[in-house]
């Protein structure tokens, strides 16, 4: 290493260091450059497409189970029973947001657009149970029992009406068939996750 190179080395080190320090100093004295968001006090505006927690509008939901099928991590579970008017009634609809990876496939799959991403993202918890969102607030067993009762009632009514019409038609006919047992019939239209 010649002396010239040696001195050049030192020169270069000093020059590049000064260059770098000028940049850091420029940031240091310019408070406008601060980009930190003071989170709990300041919040950023959640964009329209933000994929936050899922929300299911159970009034619109048809319990078609598309979301359950499309979910890659099986975080949605639902159970529905066929109600008296042949429509599905949700017994429960749970989303485990501890498992959800917010991919949004379920929202895209939802045919009636009842499932949506909200802008929510704050739900720290020390209990995993709290991370399961329940969208049907009643007890599942109660709903099932109620629906079964309604179905049975409807069936009985239908049978009665049928019997009445039949009786009017053919009074001599054999006695009307018994109302079918409520439970197995309801179970037929039941979807389980």
């Amino acid at each position, binding site marked *: 290493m010649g002396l010239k190179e040696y001195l050049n080395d030192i020169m270069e080190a000093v020059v*590049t260091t000064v260059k770098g320090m000028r940049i*850091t100093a420029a940031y240091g004295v310019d408070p406008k450059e601060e980009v930190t968001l003071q989170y709990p006090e300041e919040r950023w505006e959640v*964009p*329209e497409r933000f*994929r936050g927690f899922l929300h299911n509008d159970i009034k619109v939901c048809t319990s078609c189970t598309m979301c359950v099928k499309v979910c*890659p991590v099986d975080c949605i579970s639902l159970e529905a029973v066929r109600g008296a008017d042949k429509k599905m009634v949700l017994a429960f609809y749970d989303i485990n947001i501890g498992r959800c990876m917010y991919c*949004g496939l379920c929202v895209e799959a939802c045919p009636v657009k009842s499932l949506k991403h909200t802008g929510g993202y704050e739900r720290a918890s020390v209990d995993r149970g709290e991370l399961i969102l329940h969208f049907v607030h009643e007890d599942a067993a109660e709903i099932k029992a109620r629906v079964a009762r309604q179905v049975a009632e409807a069936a009985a009514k239908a049978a009665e009406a049928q019997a009445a019409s039949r009786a009017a038609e053919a009074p001599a006919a054999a006695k009307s068939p018994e109302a079918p047992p409520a439970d197995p019939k309801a179970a037929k239209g039941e979807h389980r996750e």
Partner: protein
Amino acid sequence: MTGMTARGEALRTQEMTINMGPQHPSTHGVLRVILTTDGEVVTRAVPDVGYLHRGLEKIGERVTYAQFMPFTDRLDYLAAMNCNCAWAWAVEKLAKIEVPERAEFLRVIVAELNRISSHLIAFGSFTADMGAFTPFLYAIRERERVNDLFEMICGNRLTYNYARIGGVSGDAPPGFLEKTKEFLDYFEPKIDEYNNLISYNKIFVHRLANVAVIPAEEAVAYGMTGPNLRGSGVPFDLRRDEPYSVYPKFDFKVCVGTGERGKLGDCFDRYMVRINEMRESVKIVRQALAQIPEGPVMAKVPRVFKPPAGETYFRSECPRGETGIYVVSDGSANPFRLKIRTGSFVTMNIFEKVTKGLMIADIVAVIGSFDIILPEIDR
């Protein structure tokens, strides 16, 4: 170090085996390197991978083609867009789906933006590894703006899940393209600032120049791809050499290492390739923004998507090298077999060879210059 005693026999000090990782700040995740050192000089560095193995390929065989999309986010979480698009392109190639041009443009835009943000992390964490913490935060600051853009277009900041088989999940929202342009205008001068701040800093150059030199033949022989291969001076870029999507429409340069501060193929070259590639990506995005056509963003794909039986291999240029997706279909809704080739994993093969005789601090530099990411290695 060997010295000679008075009787002329070699005097050897003891070697020390050190366990670097899986919890070590500079292994970029959960890489474990078993170092055998002689003082500070590393005589052997054996990488031990697999701490992050999640069986992504097997998962891919158990879920449908569409359902695998969010898992590709986890393949390389710093370049999730690129992985999303790679998967979409692979399946489209398998099922021969025509994708609307606007969707392809959007894919290229987000993929290149993601390349910028991924290289920013590579640059930032590399400088942090070298002891300069400030550039890391500058890089993060710029990356946040890219994330803002991504959040706008797909709703998430890390796991984007934006591409779909046959298109993308949503058209660019109003204002997105303008904001992207704004970001490019903001970002481009920053690259010069990085160069002034650190790239050509004497200490930084000295830390990187001539460290872990990989000659071109060797890089090719080991199957390295991406910036690491280009750092050795091999001008190979899938976007140019095996063009896919709408890349042929863009004019960009393939950045290669020049050996400007040391031997060709050293850590500094690999580092500079990334810095220069950010510029090229900016160029591509600018052209894409200028050329993007109107139209739909989603092709007609049946809801229950079953590609015809067959197999395909699709490779795309991801920030960490070639991501190759080999997918075999048996005509059902799930892939029959899925194999993913990732740049980081292949790069790791040469690690033991190039780290021989380096110092412990250089190991950190080599890991940083390879810009490995562990989910890609372990999958």
